[in-house]
């Protein structure tokens, strides 16, 4: 499906694409978090993406699975809060699974399950899982990159109507309804950025 560029360029490009989208949207993410959380999600994500970016020279020379696992570890050790263990687990698990399995849909499924276990969360809890599950479904049905990105954005916006069951927002009860979940939003933004980057790499 995709023409994969040289490994180092690919890893470096993904790191840069993620960093850029977070930098551009950090204030918006914190704004969302202020409504139903503690207002730091953008800052947290930026700290994580900057930490990864600072290590890119080392990371780009690793094989892809190892690179993803290391990126996950860096996220865990730099972000803190809820987002750190969740995004960290996602990337670490993708990396680990990739090392032994070529089927990306299955890799992603196992990684998402690990995130759900870490967060003790399920679909509909108004978290980043509400983006990850639909993204996985698109991957399974081999949707194109643009379709995946679109679905991620749509899924994030659907969290608007949900009542939070996990994370700080859950303490708000009914008052959490009517706001997009910051973690879902960052997840959609990252998904879209990755899809866009890969699309640019691939043949038209």
């Amino acid at each position, binding site marked *: 499906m995709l023409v994969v560029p040289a490994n180092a360029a690919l890893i470096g490009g993904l790191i840069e694409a993620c960093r850029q989208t977070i930098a551009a949207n950090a204030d918006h993410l914190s704004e969302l978090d202020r409504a139903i959380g503690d207002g730091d999600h953008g800052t947290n994500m930026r700290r994580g993406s900057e930490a990864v970016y600072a290590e890119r020279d080392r990371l780009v020379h690793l094989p892809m699975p190892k690179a993803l696992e290391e990126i996950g570890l860096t996220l865990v050790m730099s972000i803190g809060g809820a987002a750190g263990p969740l995004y960290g687990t996602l990337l670490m698990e993708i990396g680990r699974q990739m090392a032994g399995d070529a089927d990306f849909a299955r890799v992603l499924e196992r990684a998402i399950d690990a995130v759900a276990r870490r967060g*003790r969360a399920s679909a509909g809890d108004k978290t980043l899982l509400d983006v990850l599950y639909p993204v996985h479904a698109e991957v399974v049905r081999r949707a194109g990159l643009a379709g995946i990105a679109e679905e991620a954005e749509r899924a994030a916006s659907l969290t608007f109507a949900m009542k939070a069951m996990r994370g700080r927002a859950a303490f708000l009860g009914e008052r959490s309804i009517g706001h997009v979940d910051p973690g879902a939003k960052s997840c959609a933004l990252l998904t879209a950025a990755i899809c866009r980057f890969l699309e640019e790499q691939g043949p038209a």
Partner: protein
Amino acid sequence: MKKFMNKAETLVAESLAGFVAAHERLVAFGAERKFVRRRTLRRGKVALISGGGAGHEPMHVGFVGKGMLDAACTGHVFTSPTPDQIIAAIRETDGGEGCLLIVKNYDGDVMNFEMAAELAAAEHRIATVVVRDDVNPSGSKRSQGRRGVAGTLVVEKLLGAAAEAGWRLEELSALGDDLNARIRTMGVALGGVTVPDTQRETFVLDEDEMEMGVGIHGEPGRARVNFATADQIVETMLEAILSDLAPDGGDKLLLFINGFGGTPVSELYLAYNAARARFARLGVTVARSLVGTYVTSLDMAGLSITVARLDERELSLWDAPVDTAALRWRS
């Protein structure tokens, strides 16, 4: 927002450096300044480690010292510490009797401490107590349950004294879990807080509004209600706490009025006075009291009330000597 700071990125590190320098008799930085620990560690006891986001000072670093914590890990403002900090604290303080992690029930804290415990499990005996004292349940069975708020101080004090007295890891962990059923806290905010990173207020209230049932991160509470007299506010809060805690006449109660950072201690004493009057009318005895600014939400105006039902043994743990920056007494 006007805060005494240089820049948001270094604010926590600078504040911690000042704390350690001001209390060098009691505390020191751990490896790579990842945590604050007692200056002199005592072998042969279970190590107590707590931590959480910055912004709750003096908690937790202010509770490091004889009779309370062995180490505290501080994250960014309102952001739990990362597992590497916690692992470093475990490595440096475990004297062979294992480590007890005391964690407030926020998903971020729980997950980071959990990852640290998993990663350190091969080399250390570790148990975790998740503090859940907030009266406000999230209203759903599937939820993650009550938050850990000011009652954390009570848990850390009692477990700290027990650890000092030689209790073993399993005993400490069992007491911690048990205390969760007998400590309840409720918070009220008169205003939001400004998170230094974003320089924006978490919420804005009118002159006649307050947020009931808030946590300690500047989050909105369960309901925005009309501002009222101290007597009325205290009555509402105590009603919620007592109906949840259901003490009977024979219970020994600990009453703890905690300021959120922007409320002067004179107002806390006034609220304490209102609470004592209310208890007197209910015929309930207050056995121990604490009034002060201990578990904060940056400079939020507001306070929380914690009530704990304790038995005689726990009262002696409360009375046991403690020598930390923020809490200090002889028995």
